């Protein structure tokens, strides 16, 4: 009896960091690698569904960011939407994007000294040795995005294409669900509708479920997707 695992409603085993890592890998594989310009971007809310526990995902991602293994980025999809990308991949992508332009050495200096944060303020940037004109150049290069007067989000240059593809894919899938007779579609049938998002059906579906624009209801014929009531 001492070795019997306590299970049941209250003794449910919380998914640990391994589950979050597995979810990260799974979601990263879904990202289509059409060009080398973009690293494998995963949105944080996509991991909530794969790992099953929002608290574990948030905490593990924060820990990984503090260790410097990943970077959290702001994409411009909303104040809560955060993208997760590997630290090395981010560095390579940014350097590749600014190669040849006059701000390349500045960007390199920024990336070398940057701390694992999502948002930066003028004081913190000055500590890194960046003056106002440097910051303007970084914003123009796409590495920083303006958040408020005197504070900036960390961003990815060239993410515009990804955001456009994601929003288009979202619109396609939501329109497909809305067009159906009862505004709900079985997940297995979604591929038969006229929805072919360029980022991949599974990727966009994970995104919609995580952003709670679609709700998944378990039924006897498989999960059913319904529009979230707003």
């Amino acid at each position, binding site marked *: *009896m*001492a070795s019997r695992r*306590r299970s049941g409603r*209250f*003794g449910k085993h919380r998914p640990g960091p391994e589950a979050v890592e597995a979810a990260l890998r*799974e979601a990263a594989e*879904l990202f289509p690698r059409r060009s080398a310009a973009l690293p494998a971007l995963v949105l944080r809310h996509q991991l*909530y*569904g*794969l790992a*099953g*526990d*929002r*608290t574990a995902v*948030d*905490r593990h991602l*924060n820990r990984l960011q503090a260790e410097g293994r990943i970077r959290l980025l702001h994409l411009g999809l909303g*104040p*809560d939407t955060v993208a997760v990308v590997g630290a090395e991949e981010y560095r390579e992508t940014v350097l590749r994007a600014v190669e040849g332009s006059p701000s390349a050495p500045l960007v390199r200096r920024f990336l070398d000294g940057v*701390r694992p*944060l*999502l*948002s930066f*303020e*003028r*004081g*913190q940037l*000055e*500590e890194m040795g960046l003056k106002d004109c440097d910051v303007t150049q970084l914003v123009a290069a796409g590495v920083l995005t303006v*958040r*408020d007067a*005197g*504070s900036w989000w960390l961003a990815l240059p060239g993410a515009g294409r990804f955001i456009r593809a994601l929003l288009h894919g979202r619109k396609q899938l939501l329109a497909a669900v809305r067009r159906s007779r009862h505004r709900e579609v079985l*997940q*297995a049938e979604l*591929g038969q509708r006229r929805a072919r998002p360029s980022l991949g*059906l*599974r990727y966009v579906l*994970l995104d919609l*479920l995580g952003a*709670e624009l679609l*709700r*998944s*209801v*378990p039924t006897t014929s498989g*999960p059913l997707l319904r529009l979230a009531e707003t």
Partner: protein
Amino acid sequence: MLGFISARQAGLDDPLRLRRAESTRRVLSLELNKDRDVERIHGSGINTLDIEPVEGRYMLSGGSDGVIVLYDLENLSRKPNYTCKALCSVGRSHPDAHKFSVETVQWYPHDTGMFTSSSFDKTLKIWDTNTLQPADVFQFEETVYSHHMSPIATKHCLIAVGTKSPKVQLCDLKSGSCSHILQGHRQEVLAVSWSPRHEYVLATASADSKVKLWDVRRASGCLTTLDQHNGEKSKASSEAVNTAHNGRVNGLCYTSDGLHLLTVGTDDRMRLWNSSTGENTLVSYQESSVSFCFDLKDFF
């Protein structure tokens, strides 16, 4: 349940586990009490309730028509079916009743001889319970959204008042005047709450998405502004952009031990903070989080 009890008895589980399991089970099976009822006095919506902390017997309610009613919650009849009677009320005909909606009522923390009420008519009134007359009235320039008096304070009698103006006012009961102003917020202050652990620590929530923790003895400003992204707290960061929510922060509540602070905001989120360090514990309170744990493999 019996398994938990026998494991606790045999020493296989630690005591906290049984306590958590049982309290979770009770919270999840919460239901409206069919036997108890409260007499209906208010004609319109009820904005605030407070039960006195000494015995838990008397309850105050404040309505949006400015009426304040006092109830006795004790069941003195022998029957299980019981309606709690209203003992007295400050109605519309009372000469000193509030003119507009009452936003917050609170019993005096140490005894039931006094209670405080604040209202949209820009006043905070201190009432004597026995005579139902206001012992003191504090006037403000803007509508009062919320007030709170510290439940554990012995060295001060300050009432924190959150109004439409960005300044938090502290009114002293002993002297009858507003003794402090706390500056730091940029828009109206929607909720204030004293810490149940430290009698000088106050938390305020504002429509500018910020939650600030103050030590009222300090002259130089707030202790921390809570940051939902858990960024760095260094000398270089000015905390000017730290937001607790992505919208207005509507409500604040300390846990009973004062170690954690819950905040709710118009971005549909509820966040739990560690009240001593100010970090976001990242606990999520969404019931929909369990509903879509699907496996991508059995998909197409």
